[in-house]
Each structure stands twice: as C-alpha cells, then as structure tokens.
C-alpha cells in the first residue's frame, strides 16, 4: 500500500531521497504500523513527539499498534510549540 510520509523540523533529515517539501509517497507492506514506517526510515522514536495521521492525533506511545491504511498521510514532529 502507499502512504505519504511527512517529517518536519529536525526530523526532515530522515526523509529519503526524492522527498519534496518535507513529504514523500512511499510503498509499505500492508498492515504496517506507524512504528514500522518510522523504523524503516531510522527516525529516532524518542524525537517523535507529535504524530498526526490524516491530521488526527496518534499518541506516540501507541505508534507500534496503530496500523496504517492505504492512502494515509503520516506527519511527525519533534518537540515543538508556538503561539
């Protein structure tokens, strides 16, 4: 299945070649979890503080259980805030 991976701020350096504007569409095995995708790209889990799937919050602690589906957009940030 295909998912779009978006890595922002300091995590942007873990995006594979071909990524554009912090995003890339990737092919992953059916049944892949958020944790699988992050591991595939060597994204340090301790730096994944904010995870959104299709804009919905996914608790980082449940990343290994949360299974993605075809067409999902996975966006991940290190610790950030603003205002």
């Amino acid at each position, binding site marked *: 299945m295909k998912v779009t991976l*978006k890595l922002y701020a300091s995590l942007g350096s873990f995006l594979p070649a071909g990524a554009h504007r912090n995003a890339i569409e990737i092919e992953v095995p059916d049944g892949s979890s958020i944790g699988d995708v992050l591991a595939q790209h060597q994204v340090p889990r301790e730096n994944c503080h904010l995870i*959104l799937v299709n*804009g919905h919050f996914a608790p980082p602690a449940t990343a290994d259980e949360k299974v993605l589906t075809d067409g999902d957009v996975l966006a991940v940030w290190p610790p950030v*805030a603003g205002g």
Partner: protein
Amino acid sequence: MGWTGKVLRVDLTNGTCSDEDLNMEWADQYLGQRGLASKYLAEEINPKVDPLSADNKLIFVTGPLTGTCASTGGRYSVVTKGALTGAIACSNSGGYLGAELKFAGYDMIIFEGRAKKPVYLYLIDGKAELLDASEIWGTSVWDTDAWLKSRHQEPQMHVAAIGIAGENQVLYACIVNDLHRAAGRSGVGAVMGSKNLKAVAVRGTGGVKVDDFKAFLKATNDGKKVLAENAVTGEGLPTYGTQVLMNVIHEAGALPTHNSKDVQFDGARDISAEAMAEPRGKDGKPNLLANQACFGCTIACGRISKIDEEHYTVVNKPEYWHASGGLEYEAAWALGAATGVNDLEALTYANFICNEQGLDPISFGATLGAAMELYEEGIITDKDTGGLKLKFGSAKALTKSAELVGKAEGFGKVLGLGSKKMCDKYGKPELSMTVKGQEFPAYDPRGVQGMGLTYATSNRGACHLRSYTVSSEILGIPEKTDPHTSDGKAGLVKAFQDATSAVDSTGLCVFTTFAWTLEDIAPQVDAALSGKWDVDRLLETGERIWNLERQFNLKAGFTKKDDTLPKRLLKDAAKTGPAKGKVNDLGKMLPEYYQLRGWTKDGVPTNETLSRLAL
C-alpha cells in the same frame, strides 16, 4: 521587594512628571503587570470614555520579576482602553524595555491627558522629563530609535515608540520597543498617538531587590534547569521558533485561510519555519539568520531574518537589506494564510513594514483577508481600492497595502479601520472574523473547539494568548485533549484563563508554560515578594484579574451578546481536513463556562463571586 515602589505619573496636558508610591495593597491583590495596571485603570478612568480621548490613560507596567535574573523576566505590558475594541486592553511585550524601566527606578508609568504638541518621555535613573518630539514626528519606529540614541548619546538606551501608524491613529497601531518587539494588539499604539506621545526612551543602571535572595537564586536556577531540559523550551522553540506550528496547524485542519473560508492552506509549507531555514532559490541563502532572546530569556524563540536583496519588494531599497525581526507564527499566518499569499519574502517585507510603521500584523493581515473577500465578492471594486487588485494570493496586494495602511493613504485608510468597521462600512458585517472588534489569530475554532470559547470570552477581543488551549488540544501540553469535542472545554478554558492572567502579571513570558507549571513559577514569585505566594494564591489572583477585566467591559457597555463568534464559524462547516463537517460548538460551551465562572446566565459575575474574590 520585587518592586522599586515608585510610579511615574506623566500629565501630558500640563507637561509634568511626578513620582508617587506604588499602591502595595493593590500589588498584594493583583500581583503586578497585567493585573495591577488593570486595577489602576479601572479605578482611574470611566470605562465609557472614548479610547482616543484625553480622558483615557495609557499605562506602561512591569511585573515583580521584571528585571530580575528569572528566566524571561523582562516583560512589560501596556494597559489602556483599546482603540480597536473599546474593551480593556493589555498588550504584553518582551525585548529589553521592561527591565530597563525597573533599572531606571520605576515599576509603572501612567500617562494621562494629551500633549499639545508631539513629545517623548526621556527617563534616566529616576529623572524624567517630557521633551519636544517635533523632529521625529512623522518618522518610523526605527528612525526614532536611532535619533533618540544619537540625540542623547545613550547607545544603551531602550526605546518604545509608535510609528506613523500610531500617529495616524490606525486602530490596530501597536507600540514597538527595541526595534521589533511589540505591545501588539488592541490598538494601544493608536491611544499613544492620540496623546501626541511619540516615544518612551529609558536608561537605568539600578537593579531589582528581592525579598529572599538565596531562595530566589535557587528557585530561578531550578526554573532555568526545567526550561533547558524540556524538549520544547530547550530545543524546539530556540531552533524553529513559533513558526514551526504552520505545518502542524495546517495538517490539523485548523489554519484559518482566505478569511476563514477554508481551514487548510496549500501554501503553508512555503511560509513555514522549514522554508525559512532552507536556502532560497535566488541567492542560495536562508531567510532565517539566527534566533534571538529577550532580556533574561533562556529560551530564545525570536527570529532574525534578512530579505533576498533581489526580491521585488526591496530591489531598490537598501534600507531593508539589513537583518531584522523575522516572521513569528501569528504574523506569518495573518500575512500569509489569511490572505492566501505564499511568498515568504513578501511576508517578511510586510512584517518589516509592520515593525517599522508600528502595526499589529495579526489585525492588518486579517483585515486585508476580509478586504480580499469583499473584493472577490464584488462588494468593493477597483474604484474603492484605488486600483489595488485585492485578490487572494496576491503578494503585490499584500505588500502595497502594508505600505499604504500606516500612512493612511488611499485604501490604506479603510484598511486601518480594522476588519469589523471596514466590513460594517460595506454592509457585510458577517465577513469580519472578529470578536469584540478584534481580529482572530491563527487557529480556526472549527478545528480547535476550545479556541472558539477562548475567542468569544477573551476580555480584550479575539486572542489566543488569553487561554491557549491549542497547547492541550493540539500539542498535548500539559495533557492531550480532543480538539474536535467541546466536552470539558469550558473548564479547560477557565483554567487556562486564570493561570495565564497570573503569569501575565509576574513579568515572565507565557512561553515558559510549555515547560513550567505554576508549581515552578510560585517559588520564584514567593522568593521575590514579601508574603506567601503559592499556586492557590496565584490562581485566585488570576481569577480576580479576569473578573476585574470583565467588570470593566460590562461597565463599558459590553454584554453577553458580545461573547460570540462570527456566523461563519457557527454555521459553515469546515470543508477539508480532520475537522471536515464541523462547526464550533459555542452554544454548548458558553452556558457551562458562565456557570463555572460563577456568573449569571447573562454573563455577569454574581455578588457571591465578587465577594469571594474581594472585588
């Protein structure tokens, strides 16, 4: 302790400056800064006065920790009746001016009356005088700063000034200090302009005494350790600044776009922190040069930027080629997503103009967004705009409008009215994204339910800094709540409002609260001041301040009817993103909020509530 104990009262009408003792009874009840000056204002003016009349007062105020070694302890506020809103206004700023005011020997300056001709206040180590400002009237904030330092041969002087926007009483004119920090919102700069007061120039060499120095040093060092070790304040904010939120809020479907017609902006990535940090196409250099800290701050979230010298906005204007205050999230949103413009350099230029001329970029960008909708709907035409093509996405419309509004030239004069009065003028009040006359900041209440109640009940008109529930609803600080439900949000908003009122009264920056709780702040306040200051007292003080501000607004003529949102947010569902199909559920949250506040069904504090808070 924590105070100099002195207030400077400046009678602009008669040209006199006099010292008086700080009312310590009020300081005990209202802590400082926002709370204390609001008490002075409520006691000294009729809430019904015209904000731009000589009867309004303008108060520059510090907190007990301003000028101390507490991290971020450099804040000051400007409190007055807001020109944009007619509500009580409190605009908070960083930089160095607040600390310098304490070093010069004062906790607070109260300006009253109106000078017959332009003046500035020159304050150096306890000596204050009003001097002729005719040479700098009509000049920019930046030129005023340079002129004052040169004139007085004081390079270490700190200056707060209005630009030509304040002189022209643009209703969202701000007061800029240290070139690019600002008491930004509610039109405090217009009030200053109405008083013919161009600038406040301060130099001080004193210090701030605290009650228990040993305990204070421990408490402030403990606090700094927490900030340094926290991933957000120790790493995220200094590296990426607030602008890192642009992609977060876009992905979360809560980015007000095209005057809130949409909740996501295709160009968000182009104007984000990530874009600021990467090499530009033309000159190969990034927009962002460095981060910068305000006085005493160990976070350093400020942005310092430089515009591409070949960009159309500055190609023949070397005066804009220097490094200066760059885009923060709110400014980038208003100048970008609200107007549909994704040209980062154009946004940076417009932001420079806002700093130079003394304009609140939030209200300016949001007002321009509303004007663009009026234009695209055919309500206004080229005839109204003087030929300006106010189309969503037009960088040239953005930068030209920025140049016109401070000068009050052409259509800039209409834009200077703010979104509400402008939309009223053209018979389309429903297109104004405002509460109590103040433009929204950068969060759409359809995608972040708590922010709807936050805007509707904010005492200074729509504002994110009165209860930043985004922290909980999107970022999960201190704990995650669901942004798409209104359940529990009344209590969340009240808790944020009370805590923030207290923090805004200390002299500390509210950004510390991404890492600190009141448990970290209370020991610092307690060690600085006499008497016991614990978390409960801070919260009670915050609640007292909130109710004092509410009472002021009720006396000014605001009612329950003003605690609302534009129909667009209550009736037109979000079209895309995770909040697709949702509107804001204010109707459910507001009655619960009134009840939690101890207010009547009409939003009036009950006698029991007032009595409990000693109001």
